């Protein structure tokens, strides 16, 4: 079943010459980048490209944006096909999927250790893209978490910013009840089909779905139990949240002014600022899980990093570009923070002026400074290669937990599903 390629090509050229309208021509030094949000990571890449081209006029950039799910489909199909034709030079990959890509397509990505000084980046971002001592990513945006809250509604219920510092989740639930009682607003918008909150809780205590050796860390794991129990407590206190379905419904719950808070990654800042509620928002540290060792106020949700394809014809130029602009340029990070609200994981960027600026939208709070302080405290965990599988298993149990189902049964069901899914 071998296809005679030249023959096929000729046949096609004859029959359909009119339709072969455009073919990409590979320029001598054109770096192709795939990313997924033209207003966010796409825009930051444009800015970085402009800076690099200014110093290297011979290098041009072709930045192509797709929907995130679309990009993943394209990349995986092409990697799986074993042909390198059509692959970009640099690609953006979400952190949760990093190990999955690195381990299932060995040799597809180029290690960057020789070019990049990784001590300059947040440790947890480096750890997640490291396999056998080789690190493959140029760490980009962080998903450092915080509790975004409506300062006006919480003030109405009798809570100021100080009241939200160093609280536990139990205290948070009490505050949420008071807010609901006094203002009528639910505290959270919760999608029972999304296990993101469980991921946040787990990482805040320095744990994950897996042990260091990759085996599931679910049954008999005090940390997993504590995280799920904490979330179940929120879910069973039904008066404090509004059930939502899907992403836009979730973001709509607080941008519409209905819901009084959300705990999520720093990248939500742009969404919240687009809601035109200046002076009505604040950011507090993530509440802490009570009664477990190593519990912190810092965690992470999402975030992504840049990877260079090993097959890239412009590999050296691509690596040099990432190492010089993304790996050294403090001023660049100020620019993308101000323009795109992107909090990078380049630690030196925190000392720049933009990071210490007060933000009127958040009542004059220096939110970027807060986030970057928390960034350094995020416990490093190994996301492993089956995060999405476990996530699906956890999400499947959330509706039952919300109805007061037994925690033990839920954990057993999750463990059983994970066992059958991990092959």
């Amino acid at each position, binding site marked *: 079943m071998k296809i005679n390629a030249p023959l096929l090509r000729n046949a096609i050229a004859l029959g359909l010459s009119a339709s072969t309208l455009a073919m990409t021509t590979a320029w001598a030094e054109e770096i192709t980048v795939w990313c997924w949000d033209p207003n966010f990571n796409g825009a930051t890449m444009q800015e970085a490209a402009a800076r690099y081209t200014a110093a290297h006029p011979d290098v041009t950039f072709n930045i192509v944006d797709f929907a995130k799910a679309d990009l993943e*489909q394209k990349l*995986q199909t092409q990697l799986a096909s074993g042909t390198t034709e059509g692959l970009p030079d640099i690609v953006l990959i979400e952190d949760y999927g990093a190990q999955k890509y690195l381990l299932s397509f060995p040799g597809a990505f180029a290690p960057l250790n020789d070019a990049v000084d990784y001590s300059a980046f947040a440790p947890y971002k480096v750890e997640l893209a490291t396999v056998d001592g080789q690190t493959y990513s140029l760490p980009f945006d962080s998903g450092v978490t915080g509790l975004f809250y409506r300062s006006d509604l919480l003030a109405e219920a009798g809570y100021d910013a100080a009241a939200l510092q160093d609280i536990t989740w139990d205290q948070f639930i009490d505050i949420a009840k008071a807010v609901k009682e006094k203002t009528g607003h639910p505290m959270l918008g919760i999608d029972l089909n999304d296990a993101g909150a469980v991921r946040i809780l787990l990482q805040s205590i320095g744990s994950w779905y897996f042990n260091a050796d990759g085996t599931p860390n679910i049954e008999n794991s005090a940390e997993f139990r504590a995280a799920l129990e904490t979330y179940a407590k929120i879910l069973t206190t039904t008066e404090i949240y509004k*059930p*939502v*379905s899907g992403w836009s419904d979730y973001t709509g719950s607080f941008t519409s002014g209905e819901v009084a808070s959300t705990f999520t990654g720093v990248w939500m800042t742009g969404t919240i600022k687009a809601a035109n509620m200046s002076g009505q928002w604040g950011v507090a540290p993530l509440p802490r899980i009570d009664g477990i060792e190593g519990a912190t106020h810092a965690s992470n949700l999402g975030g992504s990093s840049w990877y260079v394809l090993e097959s890239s014809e412009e590999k050296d130029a691509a690596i040099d570009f990432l190492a010089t602009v993304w790996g050294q340029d403090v001023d660049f990070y100020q620019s993308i923070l101000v323009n795109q609200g992107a909090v990078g994981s380049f630690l030196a960027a925190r000392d720049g002026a933009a990071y210490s600026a007060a933000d009127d939208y958040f009542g004059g709070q220096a939110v970027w400074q807060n986030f970057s302080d928390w960034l350094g405290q995020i416990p490093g965990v190994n996301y492993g*290669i089956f995060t*999405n*599988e476990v996530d699906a298993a956890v999400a499947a149990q959330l509706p039952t937990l919300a109805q007061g189902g037994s925690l033990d049964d839920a954990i057993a069901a999750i463990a059983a599903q994970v066992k059958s899914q991990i*092959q």
Partner: protein
Amino acid sequence: MAVTRLGRNENLNGWAFIMPALVLLGIFMVWPILWSLWMSFQTGRGAMTQFGGLANLERLISDPVFLRALRNTLMFLVIQVPLMIVLALLLAVALNNPALKGRSLFRTAIFLPCVTSLVAYSILFKSMFATDGVINGFLETLHLIDAPIPWLGQPDTARIVIILAITWRWTGYNMIFYLAALQNIDKSIYEAARIDGVPRWAQFLRITVPMLKPVILFTTVMSTIGTLQLFDEVNNITTGGPSDATLTLSLYIYNLTFKFMPSYGYAATVSYVIVVLVAILSVLQFLIAKDRK
């Protein structure tokens, strides 16, 4: 049997008409299918695969998520396809009546759902069926329910929303085939029936349905395949939740290929479950169609 000269000519002509399609299908369908069949015997992660024999089949049988997806898919099929086919047929017959005023307006209106963008209508469906959405508001005004129903938050109601969404989107589409086919029925048959005093419903059952049988069979087979491959609606409205209540085989294949650790071999195996189901159902549908002759 001796082939006559005419017979051989007929045979050659038959091949000539179908040859362009067969050549294209051979290259762009048969070959990839053989490849994917071969893939379904491979196990492993991503690009690192090895021959696994029947390992994927064994995994299939003991996979609770697959069994859930299979059950959901068959449930959608059994409820939704007959509902939509009957609805589309009735609409087509109603809109084929020359005495009906505003036919082209109605036709266009009922065709609109299948051109309405998936993005637009999934946002709208989600907002309409939200706990504080218009559907609950409407039902509460009519005192049909006491408390708002969390449509997308409960397994059974989420399934109802999905069935409504698919029916809404594809009924007008199927109606097109019936409308076109109705033009091919000789009007004089109805004239004769009317003169003989055959009532309208009997005309529908004894003339329209038998005359449309080839196209009804076609739409039934196609809708069966479409529903077995159901993906868009569940991916955009419920993402398979809550508790996997709306997870379909296609969504599961998608997850196995793109969301989870890529296991292309296993995903291909699940794909062929759909093929086997279609084969069984198509044979049944053709047999039923033949029996009624």
